[in-house]
């Protein structure tokens, strides 16, 4: 897959607030890339810079090898599905879809065919003459898609397009988007704060926070091997604990030693303080005393598929979050076990001073 979009050390500040701190990003042709992060992390600004609505203070934007940093939005072969859809309220559905073609003076016969094709693609045949305010939120979302793709852009930017829809519709639209992407064969750059959306649809997930890219990788990599506590916390539920390496492939958390699969080779020599992530579904429940560590169940919630339990360690210092299909009662004493490969060791976040010292070395 060849590279289609490349961001090179993008910096952007609004007034005195730095929103992007040197973003480097590469998007390959025909890839589904998701920028994931909490609100205010800079993901929307990144998208707006690619779309041409913001100009970076520093850094360059490349498209298909060409520098497009100074190219205005209306000359970029990129279209956007906006968060609030931005459908033109004084035009009907057909006129909305036709807008980009009318701008380019296409023939009316061509436009008519294209409207039909686009509406069929988003499963809204025959909606040409509807007014925008007659459409439901889900339908408006589809029309926004139709309007953006009718011009055959090479990249489609999607700014939290499912944010305003209810849960059921959102899940349906996730499948729909993946299908659309397959049919169109174009690159999708998707923005969301919803980790589930990011994990289900993307080829590549880019986790952002505070203007930095925290981690980039396949959904599996992001979920199974978060590089720091922020990513682990943001992607799914997890137990994030402070620990220390006590030996090769042995980490001590709250006085108990756990075998793991990381050691000096992975950059975690004995003696190094670390953060440890254990996913709640990776903790197995055993009879009391038979596991690596023990605890008492202090609360229990039924969440559809499984039970979610909080377990307090025996010394009362740690609360573990567990997910299990079996029911256990509050107050029950249990033993717990975690397989070594399910213990994810991460570097502690560095303070600014520490990072500066590292540069000196």
């Amino acid at each position, binding site marked *: 897959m060849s590279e289609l979009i490349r961001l090179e050390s993008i910096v952007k500040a609004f007034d005195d607030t730095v929103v992007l701190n040197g973003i480097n990003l590469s998007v390959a042709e025909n890839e589904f890339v998701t920028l994931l992060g909490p609100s205010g992390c800079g993901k929307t600004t990144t998208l707006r810079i690619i779309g041409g*609505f913001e100009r970076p203070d520093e850094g360059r934007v490349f498209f298909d090898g060409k520098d497009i940093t100074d190219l*205005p*939005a*209306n000359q970029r072969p990129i279209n956007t599905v906006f968060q*609030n859809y931005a459908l033109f*309220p004084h035009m009907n559905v057909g006129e909305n879809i036709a807008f980009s073609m009318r701008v*380019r003076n296409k023939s009316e016969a061509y436009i008519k065919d294209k409207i039909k094709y686009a509406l069929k693609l988003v499963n809204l045949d025959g909606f040409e003459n509807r007014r925008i305010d007659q459409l439901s939120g889900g339908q408006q979302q589809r029309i926004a898609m139709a309007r953006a793709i009718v011009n055959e852009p090479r990249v489609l930017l999607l700014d939290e397009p499912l944010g305003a829809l209810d849960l059921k519709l959102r899940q349906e639209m996730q499948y729909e988007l993946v299908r659309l992407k397959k049919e169109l064969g174009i690159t999708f750059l998707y923005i969301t704060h919803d980790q589930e959306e990011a994990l289900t649809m993307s080829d590549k997930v880019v986790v952002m926070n505070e203007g930095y890219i925290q981690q980039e990788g396949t959904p599996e990599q992001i979920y199974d091997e978060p590089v720091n506590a922020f990513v682990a916390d943001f992607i799914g539920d997890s137990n994030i604990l402070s620990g220390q390496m006590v030996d090769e492939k042995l980490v001590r958390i709250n006085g108990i030693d756990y075998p793991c699969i990381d050691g000096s080779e992975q950059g975690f020599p004995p003696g190094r303080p670390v953060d440890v992530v254990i996913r709640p579904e990776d903790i197995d429940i055993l009879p009391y005393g038979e596991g690596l560590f023990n605890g008492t169940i202090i609360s229990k919630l039924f969440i559809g598929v499984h039970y979610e339990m909080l377990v307090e360690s025996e010394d009362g210092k740690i609360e573990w979050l567990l997910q299990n299909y079996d029911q256990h009662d509050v107050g029950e004493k249990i033993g717990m076990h975690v397989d070594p490969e399910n213990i994810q060791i991460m570097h502690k976040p560095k303070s600014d001073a520490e990072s500066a010292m590292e540069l000196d070395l």
Partner: protein
Amino acid sequence: MKKVFGRIYILIIMMFLYLPILTLIVLSFNKAKSMSVWKGFSLKWYEELFSSRIMMGAIANTFSIAILAALIATIVGTLAVLGMAAMKQKTENVLMAFNNIPMLNADIVTGIALMLFFLMIGAPRGYCTILFSHATFCIPYVILSVKPRLNKHTDSLFEAALDLGASERYAFRKIVIPELKPGIMSGFLLSFTMSVDDFIITYFTRGAGINTISTLIYSQVKVGIRPSLFALSTIIFVVALVVLITVNLRQSRQEAAMAR
């Protein structure tokens, strides 16, 4: 019982509102000049109205000033709104505060202030000074009715148009202007009615020998009102009524279409 009481109540209110106007309409068709004696039906006051050059002049002045002033205020106000949108929020808020003051200000103060201003710069008072004054006091109302139409939503529509390949000029013409249109229309109509209605500011900024309907009536009060003015008032009332009914009918027809 309750129903009957309610109906009587409404009847009383309606009488308060419309009986005076009805009296005026009836008197405009009175043969006699008297305001208390009915001497039979006649159209002679209407004839007098249409043959009186003073009255026809005042009518022409009133409506031409109203249309021109509303037009100027609408253009200036709309441009001001577009300009303000590009400013920093803080500057914009300060400007809006200044915009709101003239609307709260008493007309008499505005009128005298404008008169003093014209005297100071030595402008000969007449048609142009009235027009200028009317446009001035209408601008804040236009700004107030157009401004809410230009918001984040309009910004994102504009961006969407650019995204779809439109030039800035094309996007402005095809997307922004239609979005502002309801605000521009209501700003224009508001300006027009306020200009027609105005007496105090006109009175202070007009020169000798030029009258609008309101100043003409005022000057005639002193020498005794002629029934031809009743005829004029009747015509204005009927025109306003017809306009109102058409607008309302059209609206309810649109709403019915929407419900379908």
